[in-house]
């Protein structure tokens, strides 16, 4: 550490308030270091080592990464993860924005709707995955029953056993669970927009669409940015439970996404080196998404015209 920096740190800690602050956050810093930073560093190191069947081997450079990227299934898993993420995030954002606009209005029963909306998000992930598995059941599932009795299908169909529909089934279950989270973020954002802006716009003769485009959307940007970041993390990682419980990565490999790939390499094949390398790639993909959101929706872009 340069001498100047050392002196600066020393002068900062010399103040009682700063010392108190440093001591207060120290436990959190230690916990974060122990459960995030150190494992992260260790996993990155592990990804450069030969490690199989639970036994740690020597340094092998980029061999784990080379093997991963030479594996067509790994590349396809990345593509599936990106497709799922883009579709799921887009659907969640659009639907939750619509839901937020509705529940932001005061009408009879709006409080109940707000409460009911929370249910999917409040349910434990495993439970909601099980519910969807039962709904998709090809023999006795309620989805088949409803479609059959309303005449949409002539015989029961397989939703998660068909590669053309399996990923859609996962995305639908994911969207159902995570719409409420963003909807409430948007509700909070909407309620912070001064009503006077809307009144002024209406007096000036702006249409509803114009008001939405010129006032609502720009002023929702902070909430939108947060929603996009959080939903991307949810989409990249949290669909794992659905894949685990509903499809097991199949049929074939139709729903084998990166988290499932990491899980298989690590837990099922005990290839910790390759599993760590795949996890690092997964983390990098998330960082790219988050970086794009931060740049695209940076504060300087937010203006009301």
């Amino acid at each position, binding site marked *: 550490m340069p001498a100047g920096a050392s002196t600066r740190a020393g002068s900062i800690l010399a103040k009682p308030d700063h010392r108190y602050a440093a001591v207060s956050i120290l436990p959190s810093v230690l916990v974060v270091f122990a*459960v*995030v930073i*150190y*494992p*992260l560093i*260790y*996993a990155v190191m*592990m990804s450069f080592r030969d*490690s199989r*069947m*639970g*036994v*740690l081997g020597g340094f092998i450079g980029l061999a784990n990464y080379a093997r991963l990227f030479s594996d067509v299934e790994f590349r396809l898993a990345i593509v599936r993860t990106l497709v799922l993420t883009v579709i799921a995030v887009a659907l969640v954002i659009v639907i939750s924005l619509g839901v937020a606009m509705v529940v932001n209005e005061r009408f009879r029963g709006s409080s109940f709707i707000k409460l009911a909306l929370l249910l999917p998000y409040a349910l434990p992930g495993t439970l909601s995955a099980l519910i969807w598995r039962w709904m*998709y*059941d*090809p*023999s*006795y599932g309620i989805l088949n029953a409803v479609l059959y009795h309303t005449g949409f299908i002539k015989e*029961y*169909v*397989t*939703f*998660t*056993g*068909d*590669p053309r529909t399996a990923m859609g089934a996962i995305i639908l279950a994911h969207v159902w669970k995570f719409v409420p989270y963003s909807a409430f973020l948007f509700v909070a954002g909407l309620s912070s927009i001064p009503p006077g802006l809307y009144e002024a716009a209406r007096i000036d003769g702006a249409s509803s669409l114009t008001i939405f485009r010129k006032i609502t959307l720009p002023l929702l940007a902070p909430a939108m940015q947060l929603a996009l970041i959080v939903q991307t993390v949810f989409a990249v*990682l*949290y669909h*794992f439970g659905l894949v*685990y*419980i509903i*499809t*097991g*990565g*199949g*049929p*074939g*490999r139709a729903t*084998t996404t990166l*988290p499932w790939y*990491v*899980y*298989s390499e*690590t*837990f*099922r*094949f*005990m*290839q*910790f080196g390759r*599993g*760590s390398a795949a*996890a690092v790639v*997964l*983390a990098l993909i998330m960082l790219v998404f988050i970086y794009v959101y931060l740049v695209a929706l940076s504060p300087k872009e937010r203006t009301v015209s």
Partner: protein
Amino acid sequence: MLLAVTLVLAVLGAGCGREVTPAQDGEVDVTKPAKLVATVWTYDLAKVADNLQRFEQWSRARPDVPPTTIEMSDFPFGTYEAALTTRFLGGARVHVLRGSDHWLSKWATAGFVVPIEDFDPELRRYIDDMDDFVKPGVLYDGKLYGLLYYGDHMQFVYNTEILKRAGIERPPQTWDEVLAQGAKLKAAGVVRDVFALPLVLSPWLEEVFYALVYSQGGRLFDDQGNPTFGEGKTGPPLDMLRWLVDAIHVHGIVPAKTLEMRVVDVQEVFKAGDAAFVIVPSYMLAEFQKPGVSKVAGQAQLAMMPGTHHGTAGFARTYHFGRALLNEPKHVQLAAVKLIQFLGGQVEIDGVTAYHIPKRWAIENGLGFGYKSMWEDPDIVRVIQGWGDIDVLREQRRLASHKEGIEYPWYAEWVSFFQAELHKALMRTRTPEDVLSDAAKRWLKLKAEFER
């Protein structure tokens, strides 16, 4: 979250690979209380807990067993392997645990489980009483790693009433007959799903495929561990994969939804009277015949696996010792030896020496067993006769073979690839020839990597 778990695992993994050996010989103080940690999967937990409690009481009544208390934890079967891997890597104290034949080779290679014969060489005596098909579930590299609490095989089961309604007098003997009878059942419109199979991506998919291959007298690997299938090769693996593809897409005998059916889904479909034929582990017969929970009670019957040789795939569920036992004092190790025999071997209770716990599972839950002498137990015989044709069951188990290849540590990785490839053939996105060719190449690649 997954990333975090993986990262934490990576850290924990650093603790593995240490060489530890059993405690040195010396006097064992059997009066000292022992505390054991046991891990099981979630299946009839009340009975598991009761069995463990019985052991605790038994240990206190025996002068040659340390008075023992057991701390039990359980995980669902679907997450059991991952949960145990995490615990092993974290160095958790797991002394006695349930296992399955398809995990033993990698757990033993990783040093997660240790040979039970190292704690008591006398335990090897059980090997002679075991059916051959269960031995890969307890033996690795010639050493005994566990005892059985359950050994079973994949069984062809049919609904007598449904067949009767279609004018079919006896179950099919060959796979061509399955197709012919299936066509007749479809034409008669007496059942929704002719033939339900658990073909979702899970160990049951491979059990079914092995059973089909064995039914035609085929093999998947030779004695040197090389695949019998692959590019340009013909024989039962290719024939039966083609048969299955045609049964789904050409004949419509096996429903396409079978690719998302777990073994419990197949069980439910059959119990509801919605399937004429199923291939399931034989223990499900007891459930099929239970009035009140099964609509087909009294209608389920066993048949030999159709085919030229009527062979099938068998499997073993076991108890093992975790490596943590190596670090325990002798009296705790002795308690573990007694416990594993109590749960998966013979002990003396009330003057009777028998496989008490495997027998209890067989009688009360219909679980199969892998000890030959248990067929001589009149209580077991009487109960099985109440469920179905015991001669068929016994003959089918005699013709059961373990899943070839399972004894190799790369099996788990290969079979995951193979299952997905099988699905592609069954969905007709790839041909059976290409699927088997790639599966053979993958096997040889993994074999070369591990041998290197």
